[in-house]
C-alpha cells in the first residue's frame, strides 16, 4: 500500500478534526475532535513506522527499525488519557459553575 494513501487518509481525518474544532460549540465535542486529530496522528505514525520498517527489512531481516513510531503512539495514548482526565474535570467544573458547556459562552475574558 503506497504511503501516500495513509498520509492522505490521516491528513483528512486530521483536518476533519480541525474542522470539528472550528465548527462546534460544545466543549466536549470540541475536545472529542481533538482526540480525533490525535488518532489521525497515531495512525500516520504507525503507517510511517511500518514504512521505515519495510525499508529496513530489505537490509536486515531482524531489524527493529520503526518500532520507535509505535512506542510514540503508546506515549500519545498515555498523554491523551491524562489530558482527558484533566480536560473532563475542567469541563465538569465549568458546567458546575455555569450549567453550560458552550464555548461561545466563554467570553468574559476578551480584548
Amino acid at each position, binding site marked *: 500500500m503506497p504511503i501516500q494513501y495513509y498520509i492522505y487518509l490521516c491528513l483528512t481525518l486530521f483536518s476533519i478534526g480541525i474542522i470539528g474544532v472550528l465548527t462546534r460549540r460544545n466543549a466536549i465535542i470540541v475536545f472529542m475532535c481533538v482526540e480525533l486529530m490525535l488518532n489521525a496522528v497515531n495512525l500516520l505514525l504507525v503507517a510511517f513506522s511500518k514504512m521505515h520498517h519495510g525499508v529496513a527489512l530489505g537490509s536486515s531481516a531482524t531489524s527493529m527499525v520503526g518500532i520507535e513510531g509505535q512506542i510514540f503512539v503508546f506515549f500519545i495514548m498515555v*498523554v491523551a488519557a491524562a489530558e482527558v482526565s484533566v480536560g473532563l474535570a475542567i469541563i465538569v467544573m*465549568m458546567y458546575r459553575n455555569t450549567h453550560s458547556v458552550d464555548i461561545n459562552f466563554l467570553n468574559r475574558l*476578551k480584548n
Partner: protein
Amino acid sequence: MNAIIVSALLGVVMMFSGIITTKRSSITYTAIISLLVLLVANLLNTYGIWEFHVNTHGMLQFDKFGMFFNSIAITATLIYVILSGKDIEKTGIHVSEYYALIFFVLCGVSILTSFNGLLMLFIGIEILSIPLYILTGADKRNLKSNEASLKYFLMGSFSTGIMLMGIVLIYGATGSFALGVLHDAPAAGLPVKASFIEVAGILLLFASMCFKVSAAPFHFWTPDVYDGAPSVFTSFMATIVKSAGFIAFIRLFESNTQALGPTWKILLSFVIIATLLIGNITAVFQQSVKRMLAYSSIAQAGFMLFALYSNNDLAKEGILLYAVAYSLATIGIFAILIKMKDYTFDGYNGLAKSEPVLAFTNTIFLLSLAGIPLTAGFFAKYYMLASVVKAGGALWLVVVAVVFAAISVYYYFRLIQAMYFKEGDAETTGISSGFKNALLILAVLIILFGVFPSLVLNSFYF
C-alpha cells in the same frame, strides 16, 4: 538528570506534605526548603560533583546551557515562592497540591532543557502544560478562572495535536525522532526543498512552539489565560514556564533551520513583527494591569524570538539573561499586583505615597521590562539585538524592534505615572516587612545584573 528526578520526587513529597500538616505556612516552608534542595541538586549536577547515573539511551542530553537554565528556573521559582507563597496559600484549599504541580512543572522544565528527541520534547511539553491547565483553574469559584482554564486547555490540546502532526511528518521524512537526524538531512546532500514532508512537519512544529511561547498569531490564549488565572499562578506561567518554552524552542530549532532555507528567516521575521506589533500595540490601551502584563509578555516574547532568529552564541547567552531579567522583574511586578485591591491602572494611583517601597521596587521592575539601562532588562534586550546584528542582514528588523520597544515604554510608564504622579489612595493588603525586604533584594539584584551582567553570564561559562 538530577533536576528531573529530584523535582519529580519533591513533587510527590509536596503532595504528601498536605497530609502530614494542615498548617499552610509550613507547607510553604517545605516548598522553599524543597526548592533549595532542588537547586543544590541541580548545581551539584552542573558542576559535575554528583548526579543520578541513568542511561537515557540518548533520549536526554544534558549540557551546561540547559542545566544553567534549570538553576535559573529553580531560583526564580524560589524567589516566586518567597514573594508570593502567602498568596498561593490563599488561592484555595489544595495548597500542597499546588506546590506539587509547581514541582511537576519544574520537572517538565528540566526535561525541556535537556530533551534530545521529539518524544521527550512532547512529553516535556505535556508535563509542563497539564499542571498549568489545572493551576489556571485553581480558583474554582471564579468564572474567569474556569473560563481561562477551559480556553487554555482546549487551545493547548489543539496545539498538541498540531505538534504531534508535525512530529509525525518529520518522522515520516527522516525515520527518527532524534534531533540530530533532523539536522543532518539537508547536510546529507539532499536539495533543501526536497523533503516536503519534513518541511511541512517543521512548519507545524514551529506553529505549535509559537503557541507555547505565545508568539503571534498563536498568542490568543495568552491574554485571556493570564488574565483569568489566579494572579499568583499567572506570575509563574508568564515567567518560568514561558522562558522554558523558549529554551525548548531554541534547542529544537538551533541547528535544523537550514531545511527551510531562507524562508525560515522570512517566516520568523513575520512572526516576530506580528508578535511585537500585537503585544505592544494592544497593551497600550489596556485598563487592567494584569492584562497589560499579559500583552507585555507577548511583546517580550517577540524580543526573545530574536534569539531564534539570530541563532548564535550571543543569542544563547542572551536568552538566559533575558530569562533572568524578564522573570525576576515580572515575578516582582506580579507579587505587587497580587497585593493590590484593584488591578486597574487607577488602582495604583498614589501608591508611591502609601507604599513607597512597593512603588519604588515596582518602578525598578518596570524599568527593567522596558529595557532601560542599569537594569537587567537592558542587557537582555541588548543581547537580543546584538545577536541579530551579529548574525547580520536584518538591521531593519532590529530597527522595527526598537521602535516597538519605545512603544512599550508607553504602557510600562503608565503604571509608573499612576504610582508616582497621580493622586489617589491605592489600597493594598497583607504587606509584611519581610515582603518589602524581599522586593528590595529583588530590585537590587535586577540593578546588579544591569550593571554587571557578567555575574549571570560568567557562571554560565564557569
